[in-house]
């Protein structure tokens, strides 16, 4: 009987240890998952910011095209030269 009791006690100890390990593993998975999510959010924030930064570039590009395209289309060399100068002065 004593041997059975010992086996049972041993099983309880190992069972508790296994449960602890499983708990630790689950917590690890959870914290790894959280870490991965944190990284993903940071990446997404950076990507959103990159998209926002396109607004200024697009505005600049549109402004240059609008102000300078017409004389180019009209092949007005003299006016284009003058316009490049006055556009630069207005920056």
């Amino acid at each position, binding site marked *: 009987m004593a041997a059975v009791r010992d086996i049972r006690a041993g099983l309880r100890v190992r069972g508790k240890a296994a449960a602890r390990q499983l708990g630790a593993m689950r917590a690890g998975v959870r914290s790894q998952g959280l870490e991965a999510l944190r990284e993903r959010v940071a990446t997404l924030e950076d990507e959103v910011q990159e998209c926002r930064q396109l*607004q200024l570039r697009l505005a600049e590009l549109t402004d240059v095209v609008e102000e300078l395209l017409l004389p180019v289309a009209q092949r007005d060399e003299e006016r284009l030269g003058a316009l490049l100068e006055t556009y*630069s002065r207005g*920056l």
Partner: protein
Amino acid sequence: MPEAPPSATVTAVRVDDEGVRARSEDEVVLDVLFDGRRIWSFWLQRDGEPSGGGYLVRWPPALRRFLDGTTRLRLVEHVSGATAFDADVRLGTGGDRIAVVNERGLPLGIDKSLRLAQTFDTRSAEHVAPLLDSIEEVLGALHTAGVEAFPAYGTLLGAVRGGRLIGHDSDADLGYVSEHSHPVDVVRESFRLQRALADMGYRITRYSGAAFKVDVVEADGSVRGLDVFGGFLAGGHLHLMGEIRTPYRRDQIFPLGRTTLEGRELPAPADTDAFLTATYGPSWRVPDPAYHFETPVSTHRRLNGWFRGTRVRRESWDRTYSRLPRTPPPIVPSPFARWVRRQERGRVTTVVDIGCGQAVDDLWLARRGVSVVGLDYALRGSDAVAALAAQEQVDLELRHLNLCELRSVLTEGARLARLPGRTVVTVRHVAEATDRVGRRHLWRACEMALRGGGRLYVEVLVGRGDDEFAAEQHLRPLPLRTVVAELEARGATVVSRRQRRVSSPGSRAGHRIGRLVVEWQR
């Protein structure tokens, strides 16, 4: 004048060379007066560090150079006017009265950004009249240009709270709310406004895609800058450069109402209470000379992403150049300029120096018969050399180029592409002085300028070394392979590359530089 009550809140005040020490259970805003004049204000607990059961608030760095002598120092609770300290104090070792004044002897105070400024409490009605004239003039110019602007930030706060400019403020701010609701259109409108004001003869300095400074020349010849902040309504929110994003309705702005500032009727948002609450929070009626914006990170991210990024390290250069003497520097060329001249052996027609700084190399080259175009975003640095070049009538033109602004790069690139003859572009310590976007624009400008042939000469700091060069020149070392990769990605061919250590003049300390010769071979 009635005797100020003693403070019941603030105790154990001591003043020494480190700063002001005091105790208070509650947070309190305190004014520091030297010989009866307000010099500085702070929040005891926010701005102080715990020390001896109370707080030590250290003297602001901008004030330190004045703190050598004696003064009657009063510490006053800003809101109640109660006196927490009033005694003669000696700071440093000097025996004279402490005078916080500028080089013209005009009184200075510390503003909310901890900078020395001629705050309004030092100025009489006669002195502020030109500022008010300037405000009216720029509001009129903006109206002509198509937007309905109004005093904003501290200027509006002063007007609504007491009809006066705020004593501890030192500049005037204007704002407008665009009819557009998309950042692209708001930026384009801001560009258009800038052009319209430039056409009217104003000098404009751009801060971002939605804010700029208008310089107004006053009757006595002094130049005053008025900041103009653009805003827009979108998604039920008001966005205003540079700090505001808050739920808002259009009818809280339009139609504009009126407010009075120093006896002048000026436009104002329809609901000034809502506007000032959006700006300063619900406690805007309580004076706070040490106010700090606590702008949410999300607002900063939005405004930064949409509008900012056009002034990379510009403030460092403005500070550096503001300390330069007015006399021109010695025209001693850099080893880089000598090297470029040797390489070109008299073949070159025009040298384009991107990031010309003080333009010393440029004048040296121009004196040797080369046509030189010097480009920089902080042109102030080359003012003295520009004057010298004009006297000498050499072929040197100094123009504005901001590598952080694509439109500046595209138009200047197009102008450079039209230059006749062989063009050489020099880029000395520029690639590592800007950011990744600036570098992308830099190489684009070079490629455009050299579309018809010619060469690019690059010098870049690749190793910080043990001297002060990187700090003095506001540089962050950049691997040469990064520069090569970026240039090759733009279709350039690197003709030669080398790296070497250079010593500072008269010293064994030094740093490592890399040099490239580059062509676009077509």
